[in-house]
């Protein structure tokens, strides 16, 4: 269990982490909460919004709360935040080359969203240290409700991004209708996916509201607590403090 209040969850992802996944898998919520966690354990964190395909519910929506926590956000210029344009901030290639303590890149969905990564191939190939490319999976989404579906999306993302995915993130949820049974099913699903693909599961997620319903010892994988930040206007984000 981890998050801003509990620092002992076993997630250890220093340096550069690129978050990819299918459309609507929850990449942004995962990226934002991972940034908050990394910040809480004392790392200097920078997060880049590289979502060029999604018009709403992007990392940029959480910029104020991230900045208040001291997390640096790398975004298109303020005046163009809502532009329907694929703006690639030049600061991102610098972030890839020199991620420092902790850099998180939140990429757009599917192979369409990951295509932009190929444009950054020079920056990636110039790196000497290995880095994490994690594919977020929600088995309650169409197309990733089977191990085969997840692997097909992995191949499509790898083909266009010119990067190799080297870990999974399990993000099983039905948003407000998530129950602990969904978390347990997601855990088993990720174990099967890991076994078939030979890739490790970096962590799975559980919403803060459901934490009391699960015993963390049930899981042999680190657990990231999600404090939901990307909410519609009639709901409140979960306080991070």
């Amino acid at each position, binding site marked *: 269990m981890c998050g801003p209040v509990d620092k002992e969850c076993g997630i250890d992802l220093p340096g550069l982490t690129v978050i990819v996944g299918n459309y*609507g898998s929850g990449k942004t919520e995962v990226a934002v909460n991972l940034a908050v966690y990394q910040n809480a354990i004392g790392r200097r964190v920078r997060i880049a919004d590289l979502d060029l395909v999604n018009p709403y519910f992007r990392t940029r929506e959480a910029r104020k709360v991230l900045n208040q926590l001291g997390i640096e956000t790398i975004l298109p210029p303020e005046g163009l935040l809502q532009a329907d344009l694929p703006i690639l901030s030049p600061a991102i290639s610098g972030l890839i080359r020199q991620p420092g303590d902790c850099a998180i890149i939140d990429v757009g969905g599917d192979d369409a969203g990951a295509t932009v990564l190929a444009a950054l191939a020079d920056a990636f190939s110039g790196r000497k240290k290995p880095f994490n490319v994690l594919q977020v999976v929600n088995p309650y989404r169409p197309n990733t409700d089977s191990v085969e579906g997840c692997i097909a999306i992995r191949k499509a993302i790898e083909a266009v991004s010119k990067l190799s995915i080297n870990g999974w993130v399990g993000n099983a949820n039905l948003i407000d209708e998530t129950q602990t049974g969904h978390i347990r099913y997601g855990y088993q699903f990720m174990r099967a996916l890991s076994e078939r693909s030979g890739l490790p599961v970096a962590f799975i997620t559980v919403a803060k509201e459901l934490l009391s319903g699960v015993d963390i010892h049930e899981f042999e994988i680190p657990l990231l607590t999600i404090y939901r930040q990307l909410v519609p206007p009639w709901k409140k984000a979960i306080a991070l403090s």
Partner: protein
Amino acid sequence: MAKVLMKGNEAIAEAAIRAGCLNYFAYPITPQSEVAEYLCWRMPEVNGVFLQGESEVAVAYMIFGAAAAGARVFTTSSSPGISLMSEGISYLAGAQCPAVFVNIMRGGPGLGGILPSQADYLQATKGIGHGDCRMLVMAPATVQEAAEMVMKAFPLAEKYRNPVMILGDGLIGQMMEPVEFPDDLKSEPTNKDEWATNGMDHRKSKTRNLVRSLFLDPVVLNNNNLVLKEKYEKMKDEILFESYNTEKDYRILIVSYGTMSRVCRTAVDMLADEGIHVGLIRPQTLFPFPEEAICKAVTSSGCKLVLSIEMSMGQMLEDVQRSVLGACPVEWYGKCGGEVPTPEEIIDLIKARMASL
């Protein structure tokens, strides 16, 4: 089928397939392009057709052609795209051909912006095309309801032999919620022999069908318009609305639709926690409009003020005023640049207006 997590746009796409619609013609535009993205792989799975037109004008006539042949057909677009389809929609209405149009609205006028808006209310309910042309308009507030309304829209379009519109704001298209579909709803238009130009061999009636909206004889054209008028009156049978917190006595009634109504609902709940009761009527059909329900909600309570809360500059206000029949004042509150009014804004507004009642 178990619940899955879907974007509104994906759910709209899947709902059309579940309803047996295997023809989709469209041109992409934010914030609804995911419908096309979804159907470009999903339609081939069910042996359906997705064709991207060269423009929305072309799309409207592809729809007309498929509808004339008796097929279930639909398209999705956003505000400027719907404007381009306007001429073709009028042709469909004039020729009495059924089809479903989904408008996931963005801010305007002109190119406007890509954020949520409800600024096409008047276009959808009163000015969807030239001539005496109307559409049945439904406005969902949740992803589940968007899917259900799409599935319902096809039989309604066929029943009235008229285009039907699903009017959602950008949030309906972009937000994700759990959604559940019935296993199999697939059906065909049962009455297509009334209009479809699909050959005579199988047909009981030996009268030829002619799809046209051109009536040069003024008497014949007038008669066609009288037929349409009668249908638009009959559509009142389909009026749908939701009442919330109206069982208590209230001095203020909110009328709000779509995702805006969900903000209002949160405000109503928060006010109720403070002991302040405000009623809420959410029209689910915008044309025809639930006039009687609003009138009753005003006259059967101690209501002193009605607020029309919208993500437009007051486009629904006149319909609400018309419904209230002068029983109390009706005021507008809203925004239309992409920002959605917050529950706190609505609460402040209600408290301020309550103090002066």
